[in-house]
């Protein structure tokens, strides 16, 4: 995961030509019995775009991701992929759940190999391919461990690697770095940016870390508290690669303050 | 019944050998008509576990039991102090039966047929003996175990002939309109004309309470004599205790048995030493009896009225 893996094309100001829309949410509303959770969510995710979703806890972010992935039918609204409706259809996008959801009965290696097996590889080949990634995720030496023997952050990394190996053009990631320390998180963020670049993936990432959002995103969506609505969409116009040091420039800081203020206002 | 009115009644439990059937009619008649109460006995009749009632008798949970000569013989040979005190029927009313289509008339015809048995070693010996007597070869019989499956069900399948009770299965066949051929066992091998069923108690009980045994048999004997004389009424008594039985079968069977209970005997219940000895010898001859069996000790007529 060295810097070379990142193409330099991403450096410079954000998209000069508008990219075609990949995934589109149209007026999605959701409720559980009496509880209104999402209200008229509309946005689009362009090709190769990195979109971050910020919002107060319980506002419906995970619910939105479940709807986008086709696991849940919204009360109203549609999900479009490449202009085709995929509401309620699964397998079109890859989705990393908020919980790690590892298989307790499979070792780390097998857990990671699962998506490859689902794609048609034999177990042997799948394991080999999966093994090649373990080192980058700091999981080397833990191939034969069962999930119950891992630390929280290690489990999250296994889950992230699994999601990556079942990659689609669109990746929905629900707090993929939540349980990771600053350094490991930095490395994996870099790695993720590299993936987006190399594989022309579009990413929708839920996070609670405003810094993380600013570091990674092309655009940041802010949701209101439940029922979640899109209350702001901030393009992040900073050049890449962005580093943590950049976080101290006034532009960064004002954007961050801005977003925090929005979150705060809405959370009243 | 009636225990409350006369507190001096002796409570007595009788355990049957099988489901309630016409072999037991005399007991129920004596109960119904109050013969037992007149003798100072408060009798209750219970049905046995699958493995028979003698174990209850031996454990002291019943004073009298319905058994059969074969069982008493084995019990005594195994050192169990069981003693027959009366035979319910004078002759063995069982035999081999087949549906008429099978064309079985004599044991010679068993050859090439399938026998459905309950899995007792005695059956094999009996078949060998009777077939040998008719110059037939037992090895040509296919002997399958059908266990508790009844004649009508078994002979729907591969089974051709079975060993049945004339007074029950035979009567049922007549009622169902299924013509059968029947070869009474007693006719083809005299040694097999043994007593079944018999009333039994234990040596110890006879010793301790001879008067109760005597009283019990007096009443029971009255019951059976009543059944001999009034088969239809006796059948209704039985049915009143076991209304689940098929009434037609009970009535028909009762009529048949009325003539069998005491056939050829001076009094109901009397047994002959010869019968006990003959059967035991036969068993020994076929290697079916281990242990020491003294026919004289196996039964007594002493308490019969």
């Amino acid at each position, binding site marked *: 995961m060295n810097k070379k893996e990142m193409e330099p094309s991403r450096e410079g100001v954000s998209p000069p030509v508008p990219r075609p829309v990949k995934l589109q949410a149209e007026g999605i509303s*959701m409720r559980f019995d009496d509880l209104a959770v999402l209200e008229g969510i509309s946005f689009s995710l362009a090709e190769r775009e990195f979109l971050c979703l910020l919002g107060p806890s319980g506002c419906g972010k995970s619910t939105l991701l479940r709807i986008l992935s086709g696991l*849940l039918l919204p009360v109203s609204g549609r999900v479009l992929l490449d202009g085709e409706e995929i509401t309620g259809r*699964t397998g079109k996008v890859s989705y990393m759940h908020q919980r790690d959801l590892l298989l307790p009965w499979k070792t780390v290696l097998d857990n990671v190999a699962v998506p490859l097996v689902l794609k048609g590889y034999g177990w042997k080949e799948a394991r080999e391919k999966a093994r090649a990634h373990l080192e980058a995720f700091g999981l080397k030496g833990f191939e034969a461990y069962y999930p119950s023997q891992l630390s929280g952050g290690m489990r999250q990394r296994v889950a992230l690697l699994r999601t990556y190996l079942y990659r689609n053009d669109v990746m929905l990631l629900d707090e993929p770095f939540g349980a990771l320390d600053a350094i490991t998180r930095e490395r994996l963020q870099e790695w993720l940016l590299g993936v987006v670049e190399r594989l022309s993936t579009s990413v929708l990432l839920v996070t609670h870390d405003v810094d993380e959002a600013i570091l990674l995103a092309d655009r940041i969506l802010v949701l209101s508290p439940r029922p979640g609505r899109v209350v702001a969409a901030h393009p992040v116009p900073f050049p890449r690669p962005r580093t943590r040091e950049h976080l101290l420039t006034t532009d960064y800081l004002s954007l961050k303050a801005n977003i925090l203020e929005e979150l705060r206002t809405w959370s009243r | 019944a009636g225990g409350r009115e006369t507190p001096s009644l002796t409570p007595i439990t009788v355990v049957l050998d099988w489901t309630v059937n016409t072999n037991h009619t005399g007991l129920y008649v004596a109960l119904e008509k109050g013969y037992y109460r007149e003798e100072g006995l408060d009798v209750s009749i219970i*049905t046995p*576990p699958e493995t028979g009632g003698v174990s209850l008798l031996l454990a002291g949970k019943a004073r009298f039991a319905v058994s059969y000569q074969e069982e008493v013989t084995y019990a005594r040979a195994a050192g169990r102090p069981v003693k027959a005190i009366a035979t319910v029927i004078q002759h063995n009313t069982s035999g081999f039966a087949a549906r008429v289509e099978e064309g079985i008339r004599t044991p010679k015809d068993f050859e090439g047929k399938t026998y459905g048995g309950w899995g007792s070693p005695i059956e094999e010996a009996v078949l060998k003996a009777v077939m040998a007597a008719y110059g037939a070869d037992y090895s040509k019989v296919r002997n399958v175990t059908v266990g508790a499956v009844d004649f*009508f*069900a078994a002979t729907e399948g591969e089974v051709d002939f079975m060993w049945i009770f004339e007074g029950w299965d035979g009567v049922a066949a007549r009622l169902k309109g299924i013509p059968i051929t029947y070869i009474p066992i007693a006719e083809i091998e005299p040694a097999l004309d043994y007593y079944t069923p018999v009333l039994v108690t234990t040596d110890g009980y006879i010793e301790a309470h001879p008067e109760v045994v005597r009283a019990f048999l007096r009443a029971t004997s009255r019951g059976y004599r009543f059944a001999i004389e009034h088969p239809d009424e006796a059948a209704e008594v039985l049915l009143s205790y076991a209304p*689940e039985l098929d009434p037609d079968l009970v009535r028909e069977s009762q009529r048949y048995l009325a003539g069998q209970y005491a056939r050829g005997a001076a009094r109901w219940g009397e047994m002959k030493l010869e019968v006990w000895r003959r059967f035991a010898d036969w068993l020994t001859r076929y290697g079916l009896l281990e242990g020491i069996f003294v026919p004289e000790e196996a039964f007594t007529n002493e308490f019969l009225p």
Partner: protein
Amino acid sequence: MRRSWRSTGSPFLTTVGLLAVWEAASRLGAVSPFLLPAPSAVVVELVRQAPLLLPHLGATLLSGLGGFLVGVFLGVGLALVLDAFPRLRASLYPLLVISQTIPIIFLYPLFLIWFGYGLTSKLMVVVLVCFFPVIVSLLDGLASVDPELLDLFTSMRAGWWYTFWLVRFPSALPSLFSGLTVSATYSIMGAVIGEWLGAPRGLGVYMLRAYKTFSTARVFAAILVVVVASLVVVYLVKLASCLAMPWRARRDTVTGPSRNAGDLTHMRSVP
């Protein structure tokens, strides 16, 4: 795939279909009435014999349900004790297995002698039959609790009883109900076996007498009663399982797993 079964339908339809085939087979003489009487004949006999069957049914229900309850309490109680004392468990587990492998036919005479010729012996058969699936499934359920939840309660110094009642027992409930379903299925049958082996009354006695007088239709009328009674007990257990586990109310096990509202797993075939 699923769709083709959609129309096949309910338990009701299956039952009716099955009865129709059976009736036809009987009428056409494919099955001898001595083995399997036609359903119509059975129903006729059932109606005719109802007054006679009712008291027998009462006796069977009494020992069947009573024995089931006693068996369940005994099974649950024993499971708790064995679970609390692992050494005791290792010692007694084989005995539990042994209790199930001695043919009842040989135990019953002992029961008759120890418990008499009344209700108790029959009850004991039912208890013997019912407690085992309960104890096995409860023990297995208790053994597969999330160890981290146990840790949490240990770290809160929760004591045996609270840990059991708040964590282990609810966690073992699905497994326990599996065992209860099996036991419930056996309960009425257990009573019938006991009656068969010797009892003053009950459906087993009725069957035995009908059987020995070759009244196959009556035997099957009694079987029908046994079957319906057993089904009622089993479905009561299923109902209890739904009531006892409200947190998974929508994932019923009789009608198959369904899921939360809006969830698509069961809607896959909708375009």
